[in-house]
């Protein structure tokens, strides 16, 4: 008996074929046994006989169970399919009948989930997605860190060789450098970006060609002029023509044979860059005259390293191994390892770029937090809408319950509804995410290398979006669903579904939702405001150079194979040709350009050892410049003299130091006349000038040591031409500058022509600040919009609910103004509580943004005040319409009811 009940209870959760079959056979045997006993058989005998007649019980039981399982499975599948079908079609019909409600829910959820998915795309790319090579989980980057600045820098080829020898730690390693080159098949050359990889580049990473082959160590050792194209470049240049294999591509006018095309998944190893092609670095020697000379130099550090940890070796062990390596190498190369040491880190923690990867989790956290909050606001909104509707539908649901629908069935119907809504919003979300990543990937940037953010909507992003929309649907659907199912039937039916007060609990819940929306929205607006202020502030900080009236352009004489000896004449003629253009105030050449990534580092040695540089060495940024660069760039010469045309190879070596160097090496002394060396045993260089500091790499950075050298004593073929215009609009000079350059040498490739202002705004320097402000503003506005809509909805609903009350009051002679005041007071109470909570939240949470803000306090008054005014103002504005409607209630119709 007891056993029976238990079993039946279990059956609630589905059929149990095994037990059923057993019971049926047992019953059969029992019946037979009784029959036999009735015929006069003894009990034991009867039981045995019944068994005998039944035959092979085990076999039959198995056969029956099989049949039963098949049957129940198809039956239950069919039943639930039918139920689902009817639920879905019912829900679709009701949703289509209320298009406004349906659309607001879908858009509300869709936009927020889309924002989430877009941010997740970046999180996926920079924190989650495995690097597209073999065994990505064992891949580590090796780099140099500058002890003073904490900057992560690249390494030299000999360092790579030393890392390769750490074969108890690393199984294998690859190195590469990025080369800007002139690429040409036929016709004019264009600037391209090529990776020069170590001999084992492809074999170690386990990367194969999608078409043709990749280069092998043998190719590299033979210095074979072979080149492997990236899929994007192949598409762009050859329109995906397989016959490209075997053709010749000229790299800096040297012929290379195309041997293969990579798959679109693997775009080389240079962070954030989509190169055009990859060649063996040994073969790159023929491309760039500097390379053979420098490849063996410990101090020439344009290389990056990715190394495979041996299975079982931890990154901590690798860290101590490279630290030891630094200690081993330092005595031999003091100038290279002065204040610098080798470091290693898992590849996945070095994204999007080793130098800034420490910030990645912070930035991701801040934006993820923001879109998460926006999603919460959206869920609250949708919950509110569903709640309002659930109240309206109370009579329908009560009738359903009255005619026998179980609460479970009603809940299922309502959940089906919210799941259908979240499925529809997933479509909107995916569309938005596609648009956002597409927009970001297409963003034109004033950068001279092909930037690629690597953002793509892969299966992981889709799964995330689907998961989030499912969660959002359940979250916003479950509360109204439960509340509706609980509505007592009799009560609802009695007051005809037009209840005067829809239950205090529910009203309070809605008010709480609005209050929390206002609070979260305030937080979002403050964050947006902080980012905007930060971006604005960034344009106003003193960069140490001028952003106005400057036209920039890059010339790389090496691309045109102008020999080093001839470059000086070409550069002189360029200065002269541009300098004589009317409207040009002054012109200069420089190898460094602030906030563009163009600068070299070198080590300076002084014979006297000041306390700040105990070894007498200091790592500094250097730039080779023509006379007048300081004035052209808008830096200041604080003491001494600028370079002159006489500072050339025939005269004594000179240099200009900035304040940071002067204060570090010669504190409280006049830097003019001091002496330093650029190699340990190199010639003495005399300091002839002291310059102001400039912001070189990052906004808000600590001032860096910087050394200027005369270009005639330190020649370089790749320079930036800086043209200072007399007029306010330097871009007006573009055509004349181009003509002047062409007049000097018609084959010269002038690229990156843009104003300094454009360079700053659209270059990488301000890019992250700007993109941050754009994103944060968009998210803030999304939250604001939803809050306004939510508030409006709640007030409208409450006005509609209280229509009878208003009508009676009007009938009793109340003024319209009183109604308006009444509703506005209600709204003001909600908004004020929301703002108060929001302010507390914001003060507590924006501290987390400190590391991504430039020059703005996380409790910036303007950001807080602005958010307060905007949110409070718009909220009150949106309450006016419902309030006005309250004052327009027709007393007669309200009292009569519907």
């Amino acid at each position, binding site marked *: 008996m007891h056993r029976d009940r238990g079993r039946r209870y279990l059956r609630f959760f589905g059929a149990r074929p095994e037990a059923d079959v057993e019971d049926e056979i047992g*019953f059969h045997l029992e019946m037979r046994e009784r029959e036999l006993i009735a015929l006069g058989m003894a009990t034991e005998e009867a039981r045995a006989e019944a068994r005998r007649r039944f035959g092979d019980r085990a076999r039959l039981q198995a*056969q029956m169970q099989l049949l039963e399982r098949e049957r129940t499975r198809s039956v239950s599948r069919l039943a639930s399919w039918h139920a689902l079908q009817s639920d879905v079609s019912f829900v679709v019909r009701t949703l289509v009948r209320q298009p406004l409600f349906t659309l607001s829910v879908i858009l509300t959820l869709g936009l927020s989930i889309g924002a989430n998915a877009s941010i997740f795309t970046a999180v996926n790319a920079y924190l989650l997605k495995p690097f597209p090579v073999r065994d990505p989980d064992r891949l580590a980057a090796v780099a140099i860190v500058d002890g003073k600045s904490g900057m992560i820098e690249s390494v030299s080829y000999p360092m790579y060789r030393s890392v390769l020898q750490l074969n108890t730690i690393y199984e294998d390693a690859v190195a590469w450098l990025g080369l800007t080159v002139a690429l040409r098949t036929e016709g004019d050359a264009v600037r391209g970006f090529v990776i020069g990889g170590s001999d084992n580049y492809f074999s170690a990473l386990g990367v194969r060609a999608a078409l043709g082959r990749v280069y092998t160590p043998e190719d590299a050792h033979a210095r074979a002029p072979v080149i492997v194209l990236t899929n994007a470049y192949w598409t762009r240049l050859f329109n995906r023509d397989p016959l490209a294999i075997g053709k010749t591509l000229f790299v800096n006018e040297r012929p290379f044979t195309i041997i293969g095309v990579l798959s679109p998944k693997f775009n080389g190893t240079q962070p954030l860059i989509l190169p055009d092609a990859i060649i063996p670095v040994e073969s790159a020697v023929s491309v760039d005259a500097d390379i053979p000379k420098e490849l063996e130099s410990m101090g020439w550090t344009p290389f990056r390293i990715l190394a495979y940890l041996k299975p079982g070796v931890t990154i901590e062990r690798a860290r101590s191994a490279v630290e030891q390596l630094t200690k081993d190498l330092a005595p031999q190369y003091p100038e290279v390892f002065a204040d610098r040491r080798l470091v290693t880190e898992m590849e996945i923690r070095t994204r999007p770029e080793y130098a800034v990867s420490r910030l990645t989790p912070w930035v991701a956290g801040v934006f993820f937090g923001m879109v998460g909050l926006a999603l919460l606001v959206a869920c609250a909104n949708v919950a509110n809408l569903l709640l309002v509707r659930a109240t309206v539908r109370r009579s329908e649901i009560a009738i359903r319950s009255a005619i026998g629908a179980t609460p479970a069935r009603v809940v299922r119907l309502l959940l089906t509804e919210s799941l259908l809504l979240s499925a529809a919003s997933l479509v909107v979300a995916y569309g938005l995410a596609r648009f956002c990543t597409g927009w970001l990937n297409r963003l034109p940037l004033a950068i001279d290398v092909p930037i690629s953010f690597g953002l793509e909507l892969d299966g992981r992003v889709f799964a995330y979006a689907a998961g989030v929309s499912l969660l959002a649907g359940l979250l916003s659907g479950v509360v109204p669903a439960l509340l509706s199912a609980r509505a007592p039937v009799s009560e609802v039916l009695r007051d005809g579904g037009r209840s005067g007060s829809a239950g205090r609990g529910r009203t309070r819940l809605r008010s709480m939702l609005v209050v929390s929306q206002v609070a979260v929205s305030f937080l979002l607006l403050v964050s947006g405001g902080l980012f905007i202020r930060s971006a604005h502030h960034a344009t106003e900080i003193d960069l140490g150079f001028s952003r106005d009236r400057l036209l920039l352009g890059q010339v790389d004489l090496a691309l045109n194979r102008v020999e080093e000896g001839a470059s000086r004449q070409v550069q002189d003629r360029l200065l002269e040709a541009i300098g004589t253009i009317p409207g040009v105030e002054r012109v200069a050449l420089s190898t460094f350009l602030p906030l563009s990534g163009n600068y070299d580092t070198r080590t300076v040695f002084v014979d006297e050892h000041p306390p700040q540089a105990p070894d007498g060495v200091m790592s500094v940024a250097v730039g080779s410049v023509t006379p007048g660069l300081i004035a052209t760039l808008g830096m200041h010469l604080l003491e001494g003299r600028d370079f002159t045309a006489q500072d050339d190879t025939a005269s004594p070596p000179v240099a200009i130091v900035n304040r940071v160097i002067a204060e570090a090496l010669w504190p409280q002394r006049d830097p003019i006349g001091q002496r330093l060396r650029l190699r340990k045993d190199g010639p003495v260089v005399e300091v002839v000038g002291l310059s102001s500091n400039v912001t070189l790499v990052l906004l808000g950075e600590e001032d860096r040591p910087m050394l200027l050298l005369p270009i005639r004593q330190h020649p370089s073929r790749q320079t930036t031409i800086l043209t200072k215009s007399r007029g306010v609009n330097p871009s007006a000079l573009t055509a004349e500058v181009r003509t002047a350059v062409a007049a000097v040498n018609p084959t010269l490739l002038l690229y990156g022509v843009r104003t300094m202002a454009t360079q700053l705004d659209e270059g990488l320097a301000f890019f992250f600040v700007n993109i941050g402000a754009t994103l944060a503003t968009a998210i803030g506005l999304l939250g604001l919009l939803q809050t306004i809509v939510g508030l409006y909805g709640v007030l409208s609903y409450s006005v509609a609910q209280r229509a009878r009350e208003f009508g009676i009051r009007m009938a009793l002679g109340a003024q319209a103004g009183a109604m308006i005041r009444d509703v506005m007071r209600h709204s003001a109470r909600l908004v004020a509580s929301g703002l108060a909570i929001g302010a507390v939240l914001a003060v507590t949470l924006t501290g987390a943004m400190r590391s991504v803000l430039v020059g703005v306090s996380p409790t910036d008054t303007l950001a807080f005040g602005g958010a307060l005014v905007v949110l409070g103002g718009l909220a009150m504005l949106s309450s006016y319409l419902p309030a006005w409607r309250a004052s327009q209630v027709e007393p007669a119709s309200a009292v009569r009811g519907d």
Partner: protein
Amino acid sequence: MPTDSLELLRGTLDLLILRALKIDPTHGYGVLKWIERATGDQLKIEEGSLYPALYRLQKRGWVTSEWGLSENNRRARFYALTVDGTRQLETEVADFVRFARVVFQALDVQPATA
């Protein structure tokens, strides 16, 4: 009275089960008993073929089953004819009669004398 039980013709068991259920829903044992009674104990139905046949008929939708209490108050699975099953029974009876008639005709015997 023949000493041996008759061998069952193919398909005949299904027909008899459907017919047994035509009167009232009953459990497997009841079906067995009905067939034995109706054929004057001349047809011996094996449990080994009865239950699989019942399950198959269910799967084809001619028979449904539910758990209930037997005449002696035991929990038992009761089988009943569905609407489809009733229709199927009619068809099968008609088919069987036609079949029997043809065979009798061929054997040149009269049903009454057999």
